């Protein structure tokens, strides 16, 4: 076959300007409503990320006046994103932060997102559900805390979001609450085959081809995945879900305003213990104030506590809604050790989405092990720069040794642990003394491991190394690291040990809500993305149902469950999907 030097018709050119594009076919053509500076909106959502995107969509569809404040840009994917590792730096939160503790977390790249869509722009899109046991780790396994909700409360939202995103995966996912997926599974890449080989040899069940929020079949204006492997650098194809393409367009079509380049600096509260609005800094550096009848903070596990702490006032000297002292506390990251194996044959792991194969066989607590809770094993596939850093960490390579390892890049495959680390009040977000260029005090993250965590990591690491050897690796090395970040404003029943109630409503302030990953009391060994978006949909149903009580001063709080609204989904959500077991 001849090798064409260019596409038919010449090199690919930029599309015509003047249209806001969210993908090769998807455009944002609905004009966005703009509230005037003095308007008081019903709900102001701080952070239009994974949770914020779902919230603005649900609330605007229900007819409320909604503004979403987002610190980063409103992406035009064709113009702003590049299919390149180094050039994707803009997607991550790279504003100043400090990290410390006995096991300091690395922030920056791929840790938190920035821009409309937030972390859902750069996530690898694994979307497993939490297990029923994750909601009651204290009662069941004696560690962590119980959630104020049960799995069954969240299950309808899991099912709904799995159809909205949609999620592709096997017809039968056997772990936790067994179920099947809306879209069929994905083809394997090099790493997936290794994981399957290794697990099959050791008799470990494997979930092939998902669950991932990546299209395995075109849907509406979003094409099928083209297996290019740049998920973490932003999906220009639009096959990987982010709320930027799945929920925000519908929100704008229903009258929501998404205000980009709006960094919230402070939430104002009046003398009667009700928030009045959000103070923010716009693109030009001018401070503005958005009046709202209720405020929902969706800034993720670091920015949400940071904002609440920065909003300290005479009524709340240690931080807004922080009478419990739990704002910023019990921050959790999951163990994310990466095991790298070198193979004699080529792997070429840069093709296919990094997320395409996993197993949760070791998820639950096993009494025969010496630690509580467990871990999942997932495929990952770093691109060259990330892989170089992994070689530096796992083998201590530098100089000529690093050149040598990198020349063998195509021979390496990588599998990672995703382990549940326990909540610890000493792992927290506080404020550092320094400020960023807007004068807002910067977040400081302190993190360390407890005994259970260390034993879990040691066991998980060994197990994944066994899988790698069983897959036929000639050399196996390991890199210690962490993944994801949740907690910091956790939900709970007791106002002394939690920040919000079961719906994300802060115990202290009636019209202040938190709705993002910081709500998690424990984290399980599942990637948090699906749970965050499902919690947001659940919170939205409460906000819609109880809006009258929320907006009225002094109205009593309802803790009753609210029926799920299935009529508020974005337009492309349809039908039952492919045949699968377990519904």
């Amino acid at each position: 076959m001849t090798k064409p030097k260019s596409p038919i018709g010449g090199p690919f050119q930029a599309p015509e300007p003047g249209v806001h594009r969210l993908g090769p076919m998807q455009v944002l053509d609905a004009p966005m409503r703009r509230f005037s500076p003095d308007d008081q909106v019903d709900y102001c959502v701080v952070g239009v990320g994974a949770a914020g995107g779902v919230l603005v969509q649900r609330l605007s569809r229900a007819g409320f006046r909604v503004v979403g404040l987002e610190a980063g840009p409103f992406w035009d994917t064709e113009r702003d994103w590049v299919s390149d590792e180094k050039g994707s730096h803009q997607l991550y939160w790279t504003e100043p932060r400090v990290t410390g503790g006995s096991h300091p977390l690395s922030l920056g790249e791929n840790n938190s997102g920035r821009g409309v869509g937030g972390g859902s722009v750069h996530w690898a899109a694994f979307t497993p559900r939490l297990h029923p046991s994750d909601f009651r780790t204290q009662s069941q396994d004696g560690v962590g805390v119980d959630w104020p909700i049960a799995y069954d409360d969240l299950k309808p939202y899991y099912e709904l979001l799995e159809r909205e995103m949609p999620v592709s995966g096997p017809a039968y996912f056997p772990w936790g609450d067994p179920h099947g997926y809306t879209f069929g599974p994905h083809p394997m890449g090099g790493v997936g085959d290794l994981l399957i080989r290794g697990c099959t040899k050791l008799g470990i069940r494997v979930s092939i081809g998902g669950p991932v929020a990546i299209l395995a079949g075109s849907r509406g204006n979003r094409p099928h995945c083209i297996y290019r492997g740049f998920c973490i650098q932003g999906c220009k194809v639009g096959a990987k879900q982010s709320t930027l393409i799945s929920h925000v367009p519908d929100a704008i079509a229903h009258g929501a305003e998404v205000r980009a380049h709006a960094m919230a600096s402070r939430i104002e509260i009046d003398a009667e213990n009700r928030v009045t609005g959000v103070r923010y800094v716009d693109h030009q550096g001018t401070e503005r104030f958005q009046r709202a009848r209720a405020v929902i903070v969706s800034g993720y596990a670091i920015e949400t506590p940071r904002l609440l702490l920065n909003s300290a006032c005479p009524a709340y000297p240690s931080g807004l809604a922080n009478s419990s002292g739990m704002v910023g506390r019990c921050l959790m990251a999951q163990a994310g050790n990466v095991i790298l194996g070198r193979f004699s044959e080529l792997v070429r792991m840069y093709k296919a989405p990094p997320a395409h194969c996993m197993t949760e066989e070791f998820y639950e607590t096993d009494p025969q092990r010496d630690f509580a809770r467990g871990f999942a094993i997932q495929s990952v596939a770093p691109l060259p720069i990330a892989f170089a850093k992994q070689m530096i960490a796992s083998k201590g390579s530098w100089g000529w040794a690093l050149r040598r390892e990198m020349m063998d890049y195509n021979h390496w495959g990588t599998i990672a642990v995703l382990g549940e680390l326990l909540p610890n009040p000493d792992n927290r977000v506080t404020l550092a003394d320094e400020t960023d260029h807007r004068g807002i005090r910067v977040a400081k993250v302190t993190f360390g491991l407890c005994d259970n965590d260390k034993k879990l990591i040691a066991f998980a690491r060994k197990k994944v190394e066994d899988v790698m050897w069983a897959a036929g690796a000639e050399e196996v090395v390991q890199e210690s690291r962490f993944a994801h970040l949740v907690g910091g404003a956790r939900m709970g029943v007791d106002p002394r040990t939690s920040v919000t109630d079961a719906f994300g409503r802060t115990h202290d302030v009636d019209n202040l809500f938190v709705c993002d990953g910081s709500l998690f009391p424990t984290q399980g060994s599942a990637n948090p993305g699906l749970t965050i978006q499902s919690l947001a949909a659940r919170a939205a149903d409460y906000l819609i149902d109880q809006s009258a009580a929320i907006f009225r001063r002094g109205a009593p709080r309802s803790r009753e469950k609210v029926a799920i609204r299935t009529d508020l989904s974005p337009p492309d959500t349809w039908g039952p999907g492919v045949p699968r077991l377990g519904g």
Partner: protein
Amino acid sequence: MARHPIHARRSAAASTSGARETRLTSAQRYRDCPSWRGGAAGLTDQRVSRSILDRALALLDRSSIVWLARRRERRGREHWPLAVLKEGLLFPQHVREGRAQRSLALIAGMSSLLGGAEVAYEHYRGSYGQRIMYTPIALSALACGASLWGARDPSVARTLMPALSGLLIADGVVGFVFHVRGVARKPGGWRIPAVNVTTGPPVFAPLLLGIGGYLGIIAAFMRRADDPGDRSFPRRFRPRWRWSYDVREGQFQKHMAGATSFAALLSGLEALYSHYKNNFRYKAQWTPIVTAPLLAASALWAVKSRRAARTALPATALLAAANGAIGFLYHARGVKRRPGGLGRLGYNILYGPPIFAPLLFSAAGFLGLLASVMRREARA
């Protein structure tokens, strides 16, 4: 022609007793059929040379007829497996007589089933993302059912079978349009055809579904082997087009050769980009790429030349049919070799080599064999 041959025959049949005759000998049957110019021992068309094919057919005639002649003495209903077996043995003879409706209906049913199974899992790979992707599975199942029913029931064979088969072909054309659109909607669209046709929806596959539909329609116009008096055609049935007359008479070799050529071409193209995706990792993957154009070319040649239809066409068609069968075995082996092997059978069928696709190539070969056996359109 002063009178249409069909009318001539009908009045001839009507002149005999109206009672159903079930025990005509084959010689008698042939005699009553004016289209059949010859005896029971093979072709007597002196213009055709006695090629290997003719000799083979003559041998077959003698063997099957002797065997079946004995069977025909026994009275009573036959179980359907036996009926199908008999039908299979007598199939070449029926084709030459132009009485192959039952056989062709059965084959059409099996083709639709095969095509439907192939589409079912291919569309599962596309996750039924567009609702219309369910239609080929439903229509294949319906067409298969109608065809199998039509093998039993003559009235169904004239009505429901061609209707559903026609719908299936139409659905195939719609599918082709959707697949072309699907490739256009991938990033880069038709500007990078090597990648997008290989990784996108298989462009010609929906048309290959049409093989089962095509056979179903053809069978609807043919005569039945179990109905020597030809009473199954309704009085008002008048073949309007030349080709339907030819089909009815069982003399549509050129037409069938053309269809074979089309099917072979499409199958070959499908094999080409599927095997290209695999980078022709196995040498055997080149064989359908070589065989398909041979079959297509010889089928086109057969349209022009009677002689080619008896020599080149059956040879290449047999080659293609065998190649497809071997391909099926290779694909099955490929599925087994994937990580997880038979333990992950569902997934490995989904993403392994497409298990039924070589059989669709065999189906094109089969059409070629059919074309080579049947009679040719009479010159006007």
